[in-house]
């Protein structure tokens, strides 16, 4: 008999004492000695209840995750968690901040921000009996100003407990490129991904489903910002790229991106420049370039980013696909 099942665990991350944590493999193992078909993964990231530091609108930008399914690699090292799945709803990883006094019906007393992510795997992944999902989470410091905070992470893998075993499994494969520094100030330099970042490092072809591009950025919040609670002091905040209507979004919109394949052939081109605006490829609210393309072993995609303006921004790109593995 096939039954639904959820594997879940949680972790608390600090930027000093516990920057990373591994989830309990016992909790991440399908119960009852049965195989499991993992369909999707949900991740919640919450800031502390009392924010004594710069405000976070999107705490997910600083969370990275590493996943292995038994002996198979799912992510190539740690991957920004919000680069796993396309943003299927504008509010998928946005919740804003509740702060004390502005809303009586909140559990929080000092305000907190919450991000919720859902990754529907490219294909459901078969997990043999007694085989754990090995999951580690890590807090990364993108901007210097984000020092001194905690994150509460909870993770769930949802799927079905199966009643028969399979000989093969479709395992996702995700690799990513994170801009090495939060660029600030006038800058005409370009940032380029290396050959091992957006790369198929496996010894077999990977079927790519999509590229995902997102930008973390640091913005000064002011009264009138549509996503800032009136009454809050102006402060530095950190957010994702999902704020339509916000005038400061001109910066990531103008961010240029050029993608090339392993042979150096441009995958993007424009009428006046080979650099396209970041968001013309990774549309806001969706953040995804859907494709169906086979990437052979050791093939890679090169991302070259050009930064046109003054801002503290950190663009990131991932490629998400799958391959079939024999168990």
């Amino acid at each position, binding site marked *: *008999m*096939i*039954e*639904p*099942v*959820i*594997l*879940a*665990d*949680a972790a608390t991350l600090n930027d000093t004492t516990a920057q990373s944590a591994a989830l309990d493999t016992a*909790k991440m193992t399908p*119960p*009852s000695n049965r195989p499991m078909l993992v*369909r*999707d993964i*949900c*991740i*919640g990231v*919450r800031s502390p*209840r009392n924010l004594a530091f710069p405000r976070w609108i999107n705490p997910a930008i600083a969370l990275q995750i590493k996943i292995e399914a038994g002996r198979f690699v799912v992510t190539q090292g740690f991957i920004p968690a919000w680069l796993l799945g396309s943003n*299927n*709803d504008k*509010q*998928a990883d946005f*919740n*804003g*901040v*509740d702060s004390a006094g502005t*809303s*009586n*019906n*909140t*559990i*929080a*007393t000092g305000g*907190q*921000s*919450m991000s*919720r992510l*859902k990754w529907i795997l490219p294909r459901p992944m078969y997990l043999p009996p007694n085989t754990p999902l090995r999951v580690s989470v890590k807090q990364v410091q993108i901007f210097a100003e984000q020092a001194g905070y905690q994150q*509460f992470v*909870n*993770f*769930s893998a*949802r*799927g*079905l*407990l199966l009643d028969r075993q399979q000989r093969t499994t479709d395992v996702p494969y995700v690799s990513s490129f994170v801009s090495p520094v939060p660029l600030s100030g006038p800058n005409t330099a370009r940032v380029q991904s290396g050959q091992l970042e957006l790369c198929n490092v496996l010894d077999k072809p990977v079927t790519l489903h999509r590229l995902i591009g997102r930008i973390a950025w640091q913005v000064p919040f002011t009264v009138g910002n549509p996503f800032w*609670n009136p009454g809050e002091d102006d402060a530095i905040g950190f957010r994702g790229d999902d704020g339509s209507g916000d005038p400061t979004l001109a910066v990531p919109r103008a961010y240029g991106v050029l993608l090339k394949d392993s042979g150096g052939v441009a995958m993007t081109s424009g009428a006046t420049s080979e650099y396209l605006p970041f968001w013309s490829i990774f549309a806001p609210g969706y953040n995804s370039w859907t494709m169906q393309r086979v990437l052979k072993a050791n093939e890679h995609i090169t991302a070259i980013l050009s930064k046109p303006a003054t801002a503290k921004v950190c663009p990131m790109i991932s490629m998400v696909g799958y391959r079939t593995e024999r168990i």
Partner: protein
Amino acid sequence: MATVTSVRNSDLPRHQAGTPTSVSGFVTVTPGSSLAVNEDALKNNTGLPIEVREIKFAFTIGAPAGAFEAMIGVKTVKGDTKAITQTPIPISLLGIRRSMMSESLVNDSIAIEFSKAFIGQAVWRIDTPLYLMPGESLQITIGHRGLIPNSTFVIVTMSGTVVQRAPSKRYLPYVAAYIGQQIDFSASLTVPGQSSTEKHLVNALKIPVRIMRFTGRLPAIKNNLFTEAGGWSETPDGVENLVAITMRSSNGVPTVRFATPFGRVFEQISASWECQHTLPPGGYYLVNFPLITSPNLVNVQFLPMIAMHGVREDQS
């Protein structure tokens, strides 16, 4: 000289296959009451089968769908009823949430809109089409759960297409639900746990049900206002993490073995857990909400609600 005072469906030109069709009925419900929508209004008078794809609910008060419940069935030409919902189901639990905005209609910050009586709505997109044969009608009873103070005018619409013939193998939706006890942190920091029983999330039919998903909501109730969990920041951010569940199947399998935050079981956008499988007759799931401890006293109550959606063969 005869005066035409009304037009009956049978007076209308005969329908042709392929014609889109929507029929509506309505009721006005007062807090705590329930009323059946006129069956004739939701009757198939086309002479051909109707392939129903959606059942829609509109409320003239800007109230969230979860403030109302619906008991739904199909009345056959013989007068029998084929149940679609096992019990009255909060309307917000019928189907997948399409947008986090869609259910955040009433709360403090837009209370002024509440008085303007703007329209709230909910759409249930049925997984496999429901075929309403000629002469059959949809039986829907709308209940006002008393969670908002206003009487409300509710319009129920079924939309679909007239078809030449229905497939020989047809399916009917099946929905069962568990509506928990209020979780109240206004006087105590701890709230006892609670559990569903084998009579809630159960396949009460004599045939297997193909389960498609579970849907879950954790709406907040405060000052006679009612909000749905997971909306904008007006809704309680912490609740989806604070309230956790475990779950077991009737086979004793721990389907949610360790206490898992509500928001990670019923992911926050769709508020659903897609898990297609077959539940045999009499099969059920037990949901347990362990003891909950809140960091603060808050003047608000939460109402855990979980539904199980499936389809089964229409054996009529």
